[in-house]
Each structure stands twice: as C-alpha cells, then as structure tokens.
C-alpha cells in the first residue's frame, strides 16, 4: 500500500484513501468536435506507459476529494512530487537532482484546476 502525499491535505496518506485516475496532462481538445480521428484516439486510448517517470492523476477520493497530479517512478513506485491540478508539469531534471527533490514546487494559491497542460 503506497503512501501518497495529497497536495491539498498537505500530508501523506495511505493509498486506500486514493484512486488512481490515469495518465496526466492529456489534452481534451477545444473544440473537441473538430479533433481528427487519430488525435482523438490518441487522447482517448494511446498512452505513454513509461518505464520510469510517470505523470499521473490521483484523486483523494476518500479524503479531501480533490484530483491532483503526481510524478512517480513506475519502476520503484516512489513519488518524486505531487502537485495540484492545473499546475504546470514539473521539470523532471530538477526533480531528479537530490537537492531539488527536497523542495516542493511553488504552490500558487487556489489555481484554476485543469489537467490540460503541456
């Protein structure tokens, strides 16, 4: 059972309180109706599924209820960081240097949540 830091609850909580919600930073096109077949299939089904750093969504469903993003190493299952929905994709190179790993990414006050970020 993983221990996951919720960026809203500001502490680590047991995995039982969370639900994984798949790859993060997928872009729902706007207007979606004009998206090409291939692009739409990419959005709907095609995934990075990386062996290594994975950007993924979680929901603290049995906690604060919020969706948020995380960077996790899919080999060690260790979390590098978590960040609120709508915040930009963190710079992985910084996360990987040990010094930077200690500090959390800057938290903006109540951002517009949005998983659409590249």
């Amino acid at each position, binding site marked *: *059972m993983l221990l996951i830091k919720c960026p*809203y*609850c*500001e*502490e680590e*909580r*047991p995995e*039982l*309180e969370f639900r994984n919600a798949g790859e993060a930073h997928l872009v729902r096109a706007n207007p979606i109706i004009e998206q090409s077949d291939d692009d739409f299939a990419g959005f709907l089904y095609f995934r990075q599924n990386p062996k290594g750093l994975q950007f993924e969504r979680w929901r603290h469903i*049995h*906690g*604060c*209820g*919020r969706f948020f993003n995380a960077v996790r190493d899919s080999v060690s299952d260790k979390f590098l960081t978590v960040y609120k929905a709508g915040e930009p994709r963190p710079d992985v190179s910084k996360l990987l240097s040990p010094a930077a790993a200690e500090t959390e990414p800057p938290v903006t006050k*109540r951002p517009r949540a949005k998983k659409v970020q590249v």
Partner: protein
Amino acid sequence: MVEIVQATRRHPLQAGQLDVASVSVTLADNATRVSLRAKDNTVSALSKALGITLPMKPKTSASNGGRAALWLGPDEWLIIDDADSGVIADLAKVKVLHSAVDISHRNVGIIVAGKGAAAVVNGGCPQDLSLKAFPVGAASRTVLGKIEIVLWRTGEDAFRVECWRSFSNYAYAFLQESARDVAI
C-alpha cells in the same frame, strides 16, 4: 378528508450492548448536518452566519456551542449541529456564493470512547491516529474497513465516526468487533 398523521423518525440502527468494559461503541444522537461548499472569499461571511470560524487548515475542525465545522476539503466543510439550532436557516440567509445541502439524514454518527479508542478505529482505519498526528479536534474523511467515514477526534480517547446511513450497520458492527479485540 384524510387525517394527516405526522410521520415519525426512525434511526437506521438499533444499538446493541457491547459487553467490554474499557471502550464503548455507541450511537450519536440525531443531529442536523450540512455539506457546506464555498470558495475562500466567502468564508468569512459564512463563518459569521454560522458563528464558527470555518477552519482553513486540513484535518482540523472548529466548534462553538453545539455546532462544529469539520474541514473535509479545500472548499468543503461538514457542519454538525447537535443542538438543532437552526443552522440550515442561518445558512439560507447568507447571500454570498456557496452551496449548502442538508445531509442530516444521510449520515449516522457513532461514538467510540474509552481506553484504546484509537486502536479500535485503527482496526480498520489506516491513518496515523497518534495524538501527534491526529490531535484532539482533528477531523478527516478516511476509510474504515470497506467503507468511507468521516473521523473526528473529540477527546484523547474519544472519536466520532460519521458514515452514510446504509453503511452504519457495517460501521457499527466493525467497531464493535474491533473493540472486542482491543479490550482483550
């Protein structure tokens, strides 16, 4: 004309007797409960109407008289009014943007009290319930066995467990079973 007979309330649980001395698992009295949702900029107006400063820190609560506000999420509070003091009416008067939904009948409260109360809850709740991590007044949505609960520490050895009514028989039975173990 048909005479209208006033409908009476019926609690979903019939309390059973738990014969362990050190810790008790009992039903809380009926209470008025509101799921309150609001953004930061309306919190002060709502606090004023409620007579409680809505807590803004995760896993905390605030209470005043029979009313308590439990932080459940960054825009969500569970208001419990044990005193039936008109909390819904008070909120209805607030004009600022918010959502207040009456969930008095949705939830059931169960009180776990006595020596080892934390261990009883830890029979099915995976959170750290040490006083350091979960001090008196702490509140959080979490899980108990296979259900979701709201857990509120009302004393060093006292917790209030809130769950949805159809899960209350499970929660009650679970806590009793765990209490038997803790009392060994």
